[in-house]
C-alpha cells in the first residue's frame, strides 16, 4: 500500500519551526524531555491533518494549541497519579537548561498548569487575554482570574508589594 507522502510545506514547516516550538514547549512545561515529547506529538498530529490545517491558514496556531492542550492534559494526568504515587525512586539531575533567575523559574514550576500556561502565553508569547481565551477554549474572565491568582502567588512568594507591579497600578 502507498506510504504517506509528506506535503513539502509540512516538511519545511517542521524544519524551520521545530526549534522555536521546542523553546515554547520548554517554557511552557519546564521540562526539556517533556517539551520534546509535546513538540513531537503536536507535529505528528499536524502532519496527519496538514491539509485541513493549511486550509485554516494557521499551522503555527494549531501546533501551539496542540502543545498547550497536551501539556495541560499531561499535568492533569500527573495530578491524578500523585494521589497514589510513592516517593520518588530516583532523582533526576537538574536540567542544564536553567535560566539565570532560577528562583522565578522554580516558582513557575509550582503553579497549576492553567495558571502557568496563561502566564507563558501572556508574558512569553505576548498574547492578549482574548487570544489566550481562544487558545484555551475558556472565557476571558477565566484567563483573568488565572492570571491574577498566578501573579498573586508569585508576588507572595517573592515578597513583592502589589503597588510596585504592573497589575497593581491598574
Amino acid at each position, binding site marked *: *500500500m*502507498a*506510504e*504517506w*507522502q*509528506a506535503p513539502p510545506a509540512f516538511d519545511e514547516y*517542521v*524544519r524551520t519551526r*521545530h*526549534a522555536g516550538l*521546542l*523553546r515554547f514547549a*520548554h*517554557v511552557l512545561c519546564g521540562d*526539556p*524531555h517533556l*517539551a*520534546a*515529547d509535546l513538540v*513531537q*506529538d503536536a*507535529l*505528528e498530529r499536524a*502532519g*496527519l491533518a496538514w*491539509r485541513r490545517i493549511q*486550509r*485554516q*491558514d494557521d499551522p503555527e496556531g494549531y501546533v501551539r494549541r496542540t502543545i498547550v492542550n497536551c501539556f495541560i492534559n*499531561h499535568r492533569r*494526568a*500527573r495530578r*491524578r*497519579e*500523585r494521589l*497514589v*504515587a*510513592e*516517593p*520518588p*525512586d*530516583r532523582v*533526576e539531575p537538574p536540567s542544564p*537548561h*536553567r*535560566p*539565570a*533567575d532560577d528562583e*522565578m523559574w522554580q516558582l*513557575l514550576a509550582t503553579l497549576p498548569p492553567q495558571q502557568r500556561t496563561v*502566564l*507563558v502565553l501572556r*508574558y*512569553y508569547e505576548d498574547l492578549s487575554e482574548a487570544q489566550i481565551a481562544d487558545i484555551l477554549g475558556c472565557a476571558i474572565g477565566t484567563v483573568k482570574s488565572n492570571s491574577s491568582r498566578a501573579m498573586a502567588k*508569585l*508576588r507572595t512568594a*517573592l515578597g513583592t508589594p502589589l503597588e510596585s*507591579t*504592573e*497589575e497593581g497600578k491598574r
Partner: protein
Amino acid sequence: MNVEDRLRAVLADDELALPAWPDPVSRVHAGIARRRRWRRLVGSFLATALAIVTAGVVSTAVLSPAAPQPSPSPVSPTTGVVAWIDHPVGDEVLFPGPTARPSARPCTANDLPRTISVNQVGAMGHIYTQVTLENAGASRCTLAGSPRLIGTNTKTGARGAISTQHTDANPVESPLPAIVDPGEPAILFIVSGLACDGGLNTTTYRNVSLQIFGRSYPLDHDISTTCPLEMTDWVLNVAFEPPPTPDYAELIPTLDAPATVRIGEPFSFTVTLRNPTDKPIRLNPCPAYEVGVYKSATRLWLNCPVGGIPANGSLRFAMVFTATVLPPPEQQAYLTWQLIDYNLTTKEARIPVRVVP
C-alpha cells in the same frame, strides 16, 4: 525589577532554548508512520461504532459506501462536460473497516486458556503491555470487562490490586469487541509511561498477574510508571488491511474557475481529470471529492461515467461551490479540489481565487 519584568526576563532567557533536532523531518515522519501503523491494525472507528449499534446483524451492506453508481450518460452532448450532481457525502462510511460480529454468550472461566502471552511495546512515551488470550472454549463467546491487576509495589513491598483507569485510547485505533471464536485471540493493553512527572515518582510493580474469572495469569513483565496506569477493554485481534491505493489516485486534476467569487453565492467551475496512464481508469465505485475555498469546504460524490477516464485521455466535470468564509484582505485564497482516498495519495488541484463580499 517588578514581578512582570522578572517573568518576561526569565521566559526570554536564552538558556531555555533547547538544541534543535539533528533531523527533525525524519524524526517526525517516523512518528507519523508509527501512528499510521497503529491505525492500520484494525479498520475505521466509525465502522465499529455502526457495527456495535447494529449488533446482531453482520452485514457489509450496511457499511458499504453509499457511492452513486456510474451513470451511462452523464456527459452533456453539447458541452462534453460531465454534469455536476449535488450529492454530499453524509454519514456514509467512505472506507469501511471490519464489521462487528453478532453478540455471543459471555465467556466464562471454562473458556480460558492455560497460558496467555504478553508483549511490551513503547510508543509516544507510553509503554503498552499487550496481553493476548485465546478462547479455549468450544464455542464463540464475548470477553468483556477489564481483568484485575495484582502486583507487588517495590517501594512498599505491599502486594495487592493495582489501581487502573479505563481507557479508550487503544493503540488499535478501531477496536472491535472481543467476540472470539474458539482458538481465536483477544487482546487488551495496559498502558503505563515514564514521561509523567518529569520522569520522577516512578512506581514499579513486580510479579504482576492478571486475574480473570478467578484465574491468575503471571505477566512475566514488571510494570514501571510515573503515569496513572490505564487498561483498555478486550478487543478482537483482527488484522485490518486498509483499502489499496485506488486507480484514480493516478488522475491529475486541473481547475478552470473564475478569478473572483462572491461570498455566499454559488459559482461554477470545471475540473479536468487527466489519465496519464496507458490503461483506462474506472470510476466504479464512484469516489468522493473535497472542494474548498479558504476555510469553507465540502465533500461530495463525483458524477461518474460508466467508462471512467480513457487511457491517456481526460474528462471535464462541472462543479458548483459556494465560499462561505471571507478571508482577510491580505490573505490569498485558493480554490482546492481533491478526490478522497484513504491514504491521501490523490493529487490536489489548487488555483488562487479572489473572494469578495
